[in-house]
């Protein structure tokens, strides 16, 4: 027996986002919805997105994806404890099928927020990461997972991340969210093939694939200028991502869904909205050619 792989979207709260993706919902093409619940804390949730959340949650098609937990901060903070409590409240109101967060940290010292940065693979970071995953699992009572990080300080960081994630996820039998644009960023920035990097991850743990676009940043050090790829979710899906999807799909026997991510604040024009829909359709067509063991 084989089963199909779902295709979904990451829910944003801007009206421009709703206008762009409404035709996809109307056509019944959105199988699952990814919800970064903590990005909505302190914000007004529009009625239309509340309706989608309730509908997808009730049908077991809502996937939780936290952003700001900072799972690899060495110091456990009151903010993280409050984050877990808030998560618990959200789950009571809006049940989710599973819960993922990101590799890396964004809180330390007197910084309560920052850009997500990686950690090296040490006994200490392994223990911290495993502890935080246990707390997520205990609080949510859900399967928990981690997403690979786009940003890396070195080629060693890049090459070790897959094996490190496997070690981190092992005690909770967690799943991997493999973000293919993050892989693409590392491929561009460190001159490694995307396929080689993908093969270095524990692909049997992959439940979700993420697909998105990003942007380029010019960075100069001394007299050397480089253009670096960043995972900013504000542009179209690069052509190079689609062969990576084709490469990855048959290698992930436990894959459940492929999510297309795009910032709602980066959909100012009709052309940008149309491109998001066409990217989604292309991803959906690609995914439809594959199945996984039931």
């Amino acid at each position: 027996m084989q089963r199909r792989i779902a295709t979904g979207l990451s829910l944003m709260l801007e009206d421009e986002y709703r206008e762009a993706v409404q035709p996809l919902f109307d056509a019944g093409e959105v199988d699952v919805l990814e919800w970064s619940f903590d990005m909505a804390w302190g914000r007004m949730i529009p009625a239309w997105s509340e309706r989608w959340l309730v509908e997808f949650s009730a049908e077991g098609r809502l996937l939780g994806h936290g952003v700001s937990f900072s799972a690899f901060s060495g110091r456990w903070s009151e903010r993280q404890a409050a984050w877990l409590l808030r998560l618990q409240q959200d789950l009571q109101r809006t049940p989710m099928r599973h819960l993922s967060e990101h590799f890396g940290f964004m809180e330390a010292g007197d910084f309560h927020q920052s850009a997500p940065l990686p950690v090296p693979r040490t006994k200490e970071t392994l223990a911290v990461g495993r502890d935080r995953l246990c707390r997520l699992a205990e609080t949510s009572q859900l399967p928990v997972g981690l997403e690979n990080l786009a940003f890396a300080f070195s080629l060693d960081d890049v090459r070790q991340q897959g094996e490190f994630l496997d070690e981190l996820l092992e005690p909770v039998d967690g799943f991997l969210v493999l973000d293919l644009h993050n892989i693409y960023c590392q491929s561009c920035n460190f001159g490694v093939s995307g396929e080689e990097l993908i093969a270095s991850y524990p692909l049997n743990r992959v439940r979700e694939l993420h697909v998105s676009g990003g942007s380029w940043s010019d960075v100069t050090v001394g007299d050397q200028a480089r253009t670096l790829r960043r995972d900013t979710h504000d542009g179209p899906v690069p052509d190079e991502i689609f062969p990576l999807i084709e490469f990855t799909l048959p290698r992930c026997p436990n894959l459940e869904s492929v999510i297309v991510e795009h910032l709602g604040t980066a959909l100012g024009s009709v052309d940008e909205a149309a491109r998001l829909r066409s990217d989604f359709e292309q991803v959906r067509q690609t995914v439809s050619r594959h199945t996984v063991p039931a």
Partner: protein
Amino acid sequence: MNEENTELARLQADLLDCFFRDESADVLARLREVETGISYRAWIASFDPHMAQLAATLVQKWGQRSDR
């Protein structure tokens, strides 16, 4: 799991502090002055200079400190 400051917690705080300071200075040189153990020192030594510079730009954009 120790919930107080660990070597990792101190390193992370120092990294963010270094990145948050003036972008025009030599980020790598400042990072090499961070006091930490052998394994983390080796990690810092492996940083690609352009990625360290990008990290500084991102932390300056997104970093928020408490009580400041």
